[in-house]
């Protein structure tokens, strides 16, 4: 389930006639949520997937790794 913020961002990107890169850069979203939504997206042939890929480009997410001291 996407947050309202991500839902709005995806809808904005899916309906825009401007450059996806330009629009995606200006949309504030959580990188972690974008990564999770992208991983959960089963059908890649949708505008939602295209929008999430554009968002992930400018909101990269790397899971933090717990380092244990010896």
């Amino acid at each position, binding site marked *: 389930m996407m947050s309202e913020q991500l839902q709005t961002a995806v809808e904005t*990107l*899916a*309906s*825009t*006639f*401007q*450059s*996806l890169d*330009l629009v995606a850069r200006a949309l504030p979203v959580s990188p972690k949520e974008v990564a999770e939504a992208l991983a959960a997206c089963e059908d*890649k*042939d*949708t*505008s939602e997937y*295209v*929008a999430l*890929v*554009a968002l992930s480009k400018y909101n990269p997410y790397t899971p933090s790794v717990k380092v244990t001291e010896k």
Partner: protein
Amino acid sequence: MALPSKVLPGFSASMWMQTTATPTPLSVANLSVWTAQVATIVGTSAGGTGASGTQLNVEAVPAFGQDDAVASFAVAGSRQSDKIPTQSAPTSMTITAAWNPSDAGLLLIRGDSQNGTIDRTFVVAAYDGTNTVAYAFNGRVSQFQIDAHPGAEAKCTFTVHPRGNQYGWSNT
């Protein structure tokens, strides 16, 4: 965006466009979506459904892509100058087709050229009999000329100017 996933051996390219005099072009995201979007413009002869599209019977599909534009710099003392790519337009497509006053597609193109502000989605489809790779873009028609020279078959020449940033690849 979905990129072409394979090289099509022995394919044929065809050009398609939305029908209706005042079409609603696909959004930029949907230009990269085959199912229920680009597929509706491409006809069954090229792997689509063709529900809202028609084929443009052109002599050849012209080159498409990005034009060149650079800013040149020269620095005193340096052997080589520098060329920096700058903002440039998508390549305009000048197309020649046999003029048929009954061809619905050509009549739409003629209407677009007389209007000048109608955005329409065009698709270049490469089809090998099973798979299709499609390049979809939104564009406006500018030039439209009919050459009815008596010594040859009547032909028409028109130019489609793709809108900036409004393109996408899809495949099936």
